[in-house]
């Protein structure tokens, strides 16, 4: 049994302009000790889905199931959920400054976290644990810095303190929502290193939500690619990066500047993501897709591509050779008008 199993999750919000469909039929599993990467652009539903699972979206219409160790989180009372949040599932968010209370010392906040879930721990024990945690995430002189206020920490230290807090109760699952987006690259490297170390040591499973394919390449075992509230493609890391089937995944990877080699002109995805209130008919990526054909006005269901662990919601042939031929045709057609210019 997987640690977390999300099935057919739908999340929508009522807005003055109409119903906003943030997540439309999301399925994924997180195995113990593994990292699942959820990648997508703004508005793809990647954050909303995990927030909903943890009972943090208000005023949303939710359907589907999210089984955590066998129990459906979506059917739990808020009290039951409170016992799970923090204790069994740790959470880290993008902005550590707004997740830490500015008025309380960092150490106090970690102590409070520990003691609110386990009353048997004495204040002294909790404080010792807080210092250990800060040391573990690489905060220098943790026995002194434990008394600091959040504003006395740098951005990277705050995010590491957040990780320390999220890890304080040895959660079995850690949900990290854009944990390094606000950080500089060298600090990002520190934070990712800390997360990997903790995972190795404690066997924590991680759900890593990010828009950064570089972070995904570094951290994830399995990858879910989301677009307009749907899973476009799902597979293990190498499949997604090297044998992707879905044109959206391909488009994302092509639009990145290469790190090495020739500096060729970038290949952007034309247009922009659809409005979640008035979604296009059929495949949501159809209006931007270079491969779109008649069939795409029908909503594609995820199909297995090659192997059972790789699915893609796209009508393109699963046969790689046929797809490659199509790709060449599309590229040739695109190259023409540019030359005519």
């Amino acid at each position: 049994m997987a640690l977390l199993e999300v099935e057919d999750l739908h999340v929508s919000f009522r807005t003055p302009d109409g119903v906003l469909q943030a997540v439309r039929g999301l399925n994924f599993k997180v195995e113990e000790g593994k990292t699942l990467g959820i990648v997508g652009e703004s508005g793809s539903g990647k954050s909303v889905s995990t927030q909903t699972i943890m009972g943090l979206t208000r005023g949303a219409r939710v359907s589907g199931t999210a089984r955590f160790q066998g129990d459906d989180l979506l059917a739990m009372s808020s009290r039951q959920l409170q016992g799970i949040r923090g204790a069994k599932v740790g959470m880290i968010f993008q902005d550590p400054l707004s997740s830490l209370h500015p008025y309380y010392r960092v150490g106090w906040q970690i102590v409070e976290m520990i003691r609110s879930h386990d009353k048997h721990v004495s204040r002294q024990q909790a404080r010792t644990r807080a210092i250990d945690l800060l040391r573990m995430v690489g905060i220098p002189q943790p026995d002194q810095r434990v008394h600091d206020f959040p504003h006395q920490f740098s951005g990277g230290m705050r995010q590491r303190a957040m990780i320390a807090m999220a890890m304080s109760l040895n959660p079995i699952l850690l949900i990290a929502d854009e944990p390094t987006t606000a950080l500089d690259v060298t600090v990002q490297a520190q934070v990712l290193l800390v997360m990997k170390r903790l995972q190795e040591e404690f066997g924590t499973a991680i759900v890593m939500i990010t828009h950064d394919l570089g972070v995904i390449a570094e951290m994830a075992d399995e990858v879910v690619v989301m677009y307009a509230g749907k899973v476009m493609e799902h597979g293990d890391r190498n499949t997604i990066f090297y044998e992707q089937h879905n044109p959206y995944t391909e488009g994302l990877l092509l639009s990145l500047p290469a790190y090495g080699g020739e500096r060729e002109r970038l290949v952007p995805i034309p247009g922009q993501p659809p409005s979640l209130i008035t979604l296009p008919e059929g495949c949501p990526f159809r209006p931007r897709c270079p491969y779109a054909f008649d069939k795409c006005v029908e909503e594609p269901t995820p199909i297995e591509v090659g192997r059972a662990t790789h699915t893609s919601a796209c009508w393109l042939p699963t046969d790689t050779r046929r797809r490659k031929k199509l790709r060449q045709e599309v590229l040739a057609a695109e190259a023409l008008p540019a030359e005519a210019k």
Partner: protein
Amino acid sequence: MSDTDDVLLSVKNVVKYFPVQASGLLGRSKEFVHAVDDVSFEVRRGETLGLVGETGCGKSTLARCIMRLYDLTSGTITFDGKDISSLSVRQMRPFRRDMQMIFQDPYGSLNPRRRVGSIIGDPFAIHGIADGKERKRRVQEVMELVGLNPEHYNRFPAEFSGGQRQRIGVARALALRPKLIVCDEPVSALDVSIQAQIINLLADLQDELDLTYIFIAHDLSVVRHVSDRVAVMYLGKVAELGEVEGVYAHARHPYSAALLSAIPLPDPASAAERERIILVGDVPSPIAPPSGCRFHPRCPKAKDRCVQEDPDLVPRLDDIETHVAACHFPVADGENIADSTPELSADKRIVEEGLVGNV
């Protein structure tokens, strides 16, 4: 370096200190944030100079000094052959036609209550260049140039997506056909698929209009893609400067090397292969920057000399004249500094137990 005719902008020994709000009895400030400290470089016509570095390294302050949005503490800025470093606001005005800026936040940098046509028309109004029908014609012309629909002249910024708003910002900067555009993180607020659209647009415009760019970004892959030369800044100083290929393939300064090794690569195979240099600690306070080489407390190669002597920005090892680095002990090709230990006593460097070595 090159023909002076070829140089559009020259920055010489530019220093910018900001006084720190004093909390003392007399309220007089004796401390300063050393935001930019003795920076010199040249930008040639038609080239793109990338400016990289992390939060607080002074890259945005430097950009604002170049634009003369800040007064310099000392130093000289020469634009198109004229010294503009001490011009008054009024004297600066004619130069502003030739130097424009594109900002990071396509939401914050456009007035939400004004129509797009009037936002882009501002430069014409300010410089009294065109009005009435003529202004509208020229605004629509520049809208078309950046890929906006000229019929959207009367819309408000809120009716545009993030990528289109950034095009509005580009259009405004281009309106008067400037010679130099300073792009301050122009794509970092955009989604990847849109990012590529704007980067291509900037490249096309450069070819078409012979623009010179200073391109500030923290995304090193983007900087590599757009720049001819790149300057790596650390704590108000230039650590390394040179042609993009040279700096990226043969980073001499350990900070540049660490920065480059920290880029998350969207390619699992090469990500697994490469050695990452994880820096310890954070950037020290720019109020009291470290002595000697400012990077020494975090540098894996630091020796005593680095504490005492500020290294010059000169070619190192066998590098060509145009590739310069400010480091006493530059990184050799193929040298792995991930596991080096500094020859410095512990009180002179930052120590973090949790972060030594690689996973």
